[in-house]
C-alpha cells in the first residue's frame, strides 16, 4: 500500500482512485473500499455514488473550481487537487477557497506532481495530505514543514497577518 503524508505523519493510504476510462459513464464499476472519483463521475453518477456504503472522495483537476461542487461538499470526506505539473499554481487557490470560502473541514490532498519544495506553502493554503511523488523520500519531505518559522500573511492555519499580531 502506498504511503503518504497526512497531518504531518507518514501513513498508509487506503483510498482508491476510480479510473474513469469513459468520459461520460452512466454507471460505474465500484471497487470495495473508500473511493475517489472525478468531477465528471460525480456529476453523472451521483445517485450510485451516494448509495455506495464507503467513504467518498472527489478529485479536482487544476482547472476545475471548487464552486462547481460548493453544494455537495458534505458528501466528500476527501477532496484531492491534482497538480499536472508543480508550476501550476491554481491548486493553491482551490484549496484556499475550500477552506476559507466554503469552510470545508475534510481532508484536502495534493496529488500529481507534488514535491518537497511545495509542502510548506501547500499546507498554508489548506492542504493537510500530500501524495509526494513516489520516487522521492517521504522522510526527507517531512522536513519541509520546518522551512520557515514566521510568515507575513494570514493563512488557513493562522487567521491573522503578522501586522495584526501583537
Amino acid at each position: 500500500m502506498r504511503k503518504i503524508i497526512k497531518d504531518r505523519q507518514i501513513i498508509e493510504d487506503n483510498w482508491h482512485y476510480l479510473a474513469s476510462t469513459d468520459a461520460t459513464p452512466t454507471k460505474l464499476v465500484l471497487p470495495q473500499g473508500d473511493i475517489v472519483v472525478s468531477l465528471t463521475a460525480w456529476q453523472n453518477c451521483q445517485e450510485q455514488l451516494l448509495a455506495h456504503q464507503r467513504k467518498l472522495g472527489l478529485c479536482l483537476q487544476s482547472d476545475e473550481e471548487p464552486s462547481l461542487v460548493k453544494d455537495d461538499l458534505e458528501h466528500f470526506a476527501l477532496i484531492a487537487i491534482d497538480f499536472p505539473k508543480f508550476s501550476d499554481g491554481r491548486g493553491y487557490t482551490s484549496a484556499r477557497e475550500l477552506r476559507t470560502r466554503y469552510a470545508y473541514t475534510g481532508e484536502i490532498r495534493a496529488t500529481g506532481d507534488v514535491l518537497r519544495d511545495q509542502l510548506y506553502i501547500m499546507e498554508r493554503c489548506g492542504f493537510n495530505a500530500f501524495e509526494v511523488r513516489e520516487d522521492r523520500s517521504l522522510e526527507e519531505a517531512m522536513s519541509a514543514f520546518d522551512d520557515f518559522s514566521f510568515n507575513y500573511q494570514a493563512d488557513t492555519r493562522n487567521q491573522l497577518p503578522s501586522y495584526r499580531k501583537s
Partner: protein
Amino acid sequence: MYAYTENDQKIIEQRVAQYRNQTQRYLAGELSDDEFLVLRLQNGLYIQRHAPMLRVAIPHGMINSKQIRMLAHIARHHDKGYAHFSTRQNIQFNWPELKEVPEILEKLASVQMHAIQTSGNCIRNTTSDQYAGVAVDEIVDPRPYCEIIRQWSTFHPEFTLLPRKFKIAVSGARSDRAATQVHDIGLYLIKNAEGEIGFKVFVGGGLGRTPVVAPVIKEFLPEQHLLSYLEAILRVYNRHGRRDNKYKARIKILVKALTPEVFAEKVAAEWAELKDGPMTLPREEIDRIKACYQGPQYQSFPGDDENFITQLKSSPSFKIWVNRNTVQHKVPGYRIVNLSLKETGQAPGDVSDDALDTIADLADRYSFGEVRSTHEQNLVFADVQQSDLFALWNELKTLGYATPNIGLLTDVICCPGGDFCALANAKSIPIAEQIQRRFENLDYLHDIGELDINISGCMNACGHHHVGHIGILGVDKKGKEFYQVSLGGSANEDAAIGKIIGPSFDEEEIANVIEKIVAVYLENRIEGERFIDTYRRIELAPFKERVYAKNN
C-alpha cells in the same frame, strides 16, 4: 529607509537555508534540471549565455552604503568585478558560480538584502519613484506602501506559482517617474476631496510582445484596503490567467480578454469577501512603516547657499551639470543629485566593484549614507547640501559619473542584450555606444533637450523600447541582427506605446537614422517643445519620409 525587524531578518535567513538545501539536492542529482529551474528562478538565478545570472532585489530602489559595500565585495569575490543595475531598480551579477550562490545569499542576508522573487512566475520587486520623499511635486511618499507590499508578497502561499511574472509599481508624485502605467499593477497615490490618502489602481499594463498601457479599474482605493484589494486582483489572475501559452499568460491578456469592466467586477466580487477583514491595514501598521521613511535630520538653511551661487556663476560646466543632473529638493539648501551611469563607452547600468565602494563612501560623506537606483539605470544621492555640490561634482567627474546627460539622448536605457542574455536576438550595448558617440557634442546634445532612447535586444523588452520617445528593438532575420525603430512612446503620466516607423535597419545605420529623426524634430519644433511634444503634433509621417528617403 526601512530597517528589518527580527522577523524580517529571520525569514530571509531561513530562505538562505532552504535554498542551500535545494542547491545541494540539485548538485547531488536529487532534483532534475526542470525542478531546480522553478526553484532557482524563485530566487533570482537564471542560467545565461555564459554563466548563471543572479538578480538581487533593491526594494523600491533604496539602498544604503553598507549594502553597497557588500555588493562591491560580491562583485569582487564572486563575479568578474562588476554588477549591472536593471530597469527595475535591481542589481544583477552576471558571472556567479551556481554552487557559490547560497554563500552569496548568506552575505546579502547579513546586510538585510535578498534575491527573493526577483525572477520566476511570482510577485516581483515593487518599484517606485527615485525621488520619493524628496520631490517637490510629491503628493504622498510611496515608499512605505512599497514596503507594505513587499512584506505581503514575500512568500505569499497562494501566489507563488502564478501564470506568469507579476510586477507592481507605486508612484506618489504629479510626474510619474516609475513607468507605473506599464506594470501588471500600477498604483498612483492620491488624496480625495476629504484629504484622505488612497490609490488610483491601474491593472494590466506591460511591455513585451503585447505592449499595453494599463486601464484604470478603481479610481480611489482607501489606503487601509490596499492589501485586500491586491489580494483580490491576484486571486482572479491566479485562477483565470492563461497557462496554456507563455506569451498570453500575463494579466494584461486576461484584462483585455474580459474587458477592464468585467475584470473589475470579478475583482470586486473577490474583494467583497476580504474587505474590512483581517487584511485591513491598521493605522498603527501604516504609521510603523512610515516612521522608517521620515528622512534624515536635515539642517535648516534660510535659502540658497551663497558659495553655491558664486560657483554656478564662475564655472559654466558646473552650472551645466547642476541644471541637467540635479533636481530641486523639498528642503531649502539641499538638492537631489543624479549619478549618470551613461558615460560614452560604458555599458548602461554597469558599475565596477571599486566604483561601488567609492559610491558608498561618497554617499556617507554627502548624502546620509543612502543611495537610490533608478528605472533609467542611474543612481541618485537624494539629500545633498548645496554647499557640497561643487566638491561632489569634482569627485563624480573623476569617477566618470558626472556626464551631464540625465534625461537627454545619450542617457540610454538598455538591456544587457546579446552580449550576455540567452534570450536576446541582437546586441544592445554596442547600439547604445554607437548613439552615444554620435551625439557626444554637449552643445548639440543639450540643444536637442529631453529625449528618451530605450533599447531592447529582443521582444521581451527589458530595455522598455515601447515606451522610449525613440525605441529600438533588436530582431533576428536569418541569423543577422537588425533593428526596428519606433517613435512616440512614453513611460510617464502621459504613458503611450511607440509606433514602428517602418522596415528595420542594419546595425551600422542606427546612428544615422537617429540623427535624421532628430533633424526632423529640430526643424519642426516650436519654442519650448520637447521631442515628444513635436512628435505628437506632427506625428509619424515627416520622420518616416526623411528616414527612408533615397540618398542622392
